[in-house]
């Protein structure tokens, strides 16, 4: 059976088990075994290797060596990219290692465009730099289907949108948060449509947290802003997504979905209270603290009761 640390801790408190027996149980049931260590060490070494090498390359080009002409610079980058891509195509390679190398190569694409920007003075934070980076790693992201690479991809998309709105479009904050929320929420919900795929939960959780943060900040903006019909879009979409999140949380008994959605609602309601009560006096702080305490208490009670069933 599946014995977890918590189970051992509970049995210890109500029995006469000896230290040796508990140590044995922990080793056998909880602690990582040889296979896990081997896997961990392999991943650790290759990630450190690729990570440091890519960082070294980034620093090399950031140094902006005057003696190196632009042809050599771009040529160097391109040949590095070709070498890494060929490495990935080598047949006898573990797929995780292949993906780690491909992730390193995806960073190199960013460096390539940065070098390009350096030579032709397009600026390091121009949105088109991130747009180009995003577009040209798309294929690798799709081919490798590697969660860390997907996360990089999503971060790139988010940055591109934020920079685009700042530098070109001058969108309102509410609109930016609406767009970001929609994109991240779609990715967060997507596992529902691919039930056969094994998507790591840490990835879904990070994206969910990102989407919910966008919604929370966006709606807080709406509360303090004067009412505009367009704001309804974010409110409706958030309501729909949150309902979906709670439904999913109840179905899978996942404390994560329930707690992030409900906690976001608590924050939004608190912001609403602050706006409605207006003055920063005893009433505001009193009502606020009472509200937070009660709502958090009931949230916890609710989550625990759903997990018990």
């Amino acid at each position, binding site marked *: 059976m599946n*014995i977890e640390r918590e189970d051992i801790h509970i049995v210890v408190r109500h*029995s006469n088990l000896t230290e040796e027996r508990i*140590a044995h149980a922990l080793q056998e049931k909880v602690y990582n075994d040889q296979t896990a260590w081997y896997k961990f060490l392999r991943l650790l070494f290759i990630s*450190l290797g*690729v990570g440091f090498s890519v960082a*070294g390359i980034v620093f090399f080009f950031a140094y902006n060596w005057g003696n190196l002409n632009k042809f050599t610079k771009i040529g160097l980058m391109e040949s590095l990219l070709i070498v890494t891509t060929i490495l990935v195509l080598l047949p006898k390679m573990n797929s995780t290692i292949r993906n780690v190398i491909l992730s390193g190569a995806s960073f190199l694409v960013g460096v390539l465009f940065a070098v390009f920007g350096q030579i032709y003075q397009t600026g390091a934070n121009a949105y088109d730099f991130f747009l180009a980076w995003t577009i040209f790693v798309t294929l690798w992201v799709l081919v490798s289907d590697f969660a860390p690479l997907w996360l990089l991809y999503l971060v790139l998309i988010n940055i591109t949108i934020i920079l685009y709105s700042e530098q070109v479009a001058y969108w309102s904050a509410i609109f930016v948060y609406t767009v970001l929320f929609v994109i991240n929420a779609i990715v967060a919900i997507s596992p529902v449509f691919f039930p056969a795929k094994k998507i790591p939960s840490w990835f879904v959780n990070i994206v969910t947290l990102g989407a919910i943060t966008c919604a929370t900040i966006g709606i807080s903006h709406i509360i303090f802003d004067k009412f505009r019909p367009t704001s309804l879009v974010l409110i409706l979409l958030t309501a729909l997504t949150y309902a979906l999140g709670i439904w999913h949380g109840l179905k899978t008994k996942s404390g994560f979905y329930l*707690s992030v959605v409900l906690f976001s609602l608590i924050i939004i309601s608190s912001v609403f209270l602050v706006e409605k009560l207006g003055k920063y006096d005893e009433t505001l702080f009193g009502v606020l603290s009472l509200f937070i305490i009660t709502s958090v208490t009931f949230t916890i009670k609710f989550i625990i009761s759903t997990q018990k069933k």
Partner: protein
Amino acid sequence: MKTHDINELLDYFQDENKSFSFDENAIAEAYQDDNKNQSLAVKVISSFGGILASLAFFGFILVSGIYDSGLGMSVLGGILIIGSVAINKAGNSTLLDTASVSFFLAGFLLFGMGISTLHTNEENLICGSFIIISLCTLMLAPSYIFSFFSVLILNGSILTLIISNEHYNSVHIYVSLLAFVVTYLFLHEAKIITTHKTLAKLYKPVKIGLIFSFLAGLTILGTKAFPLSPNYIWVSSVVNIALIAYLVFQFSKILNIQETKAKIGVCIFTVLILSPTALSPAISGALLVLLLSFYANYKTGFVLGIITFIYFVSQYYYDLKFTLLTKSAMLFATGVLFIALYLFTAKKLTSNEKI
């Protein structure tokens, strides 16, 4: 957990142990008790909720006019702390947990502010009393969240004491001690939880609280905000690296390295690889947390270890006083070293896997 699961669990321990006796009702009850069986999500939400509510409550007390009386504030703060711990010990129900935690934290805020208006040398007095109060709270072994915050307050007060008295180099002693304690906690889980019921209850909140404090101490060592003498910066590194070497020696058994010669070789190699980080103890400290958490399969610590490790390594290279070209060469050489290490060990690390 359902009854048949509990029976299965007890069967596992019964197997080879004839003298095993247990209180089945108490175990079943423990599984029913909300407070002893909370998921990470619940812990995080009650921590954040408690902090938010305590701030709102603190604001309420401030605008209500008590701000004028230092004595009034410290007395009220004291009452809040004692009252919340008492409620927590007596009731021990989830319904009161968030409320009592927020009163507990607001109590500390009020107590500290009260003393600071009363006294001239206030920092030492505040920190001293915070240390005593948090130690007393811990000895009463309240709920998870209470113990966790007590550990944080205790360590935060010690750090503040060191910094406000300008004994900056004592931070090394403090961080090194924490490194020892955290390592001990991880390696002797079975011993600690079987020694005493109170220790068993405190084990988890204290462990995560100490990890947070240790990483916070390392962050302070890494920042330039305090005038730490550069002559002693290696002290914490030596402790961290020595502990990592010890771990490597211990874990080599799991890795199927049998010969003592090979074990010592691996240890020396580890020390050599880590020695360039001697001037940045934060890196080896984060690595220590990472290794310990992986060993004990402790996910929260593992994630914290990865995040802080990346952060500290980035900061290390950012702070280095070399040209970008030199940094680039150093980074690239490190990268090549690890790739070589990977290629060198890959065969061994894969071939044994199927056994």
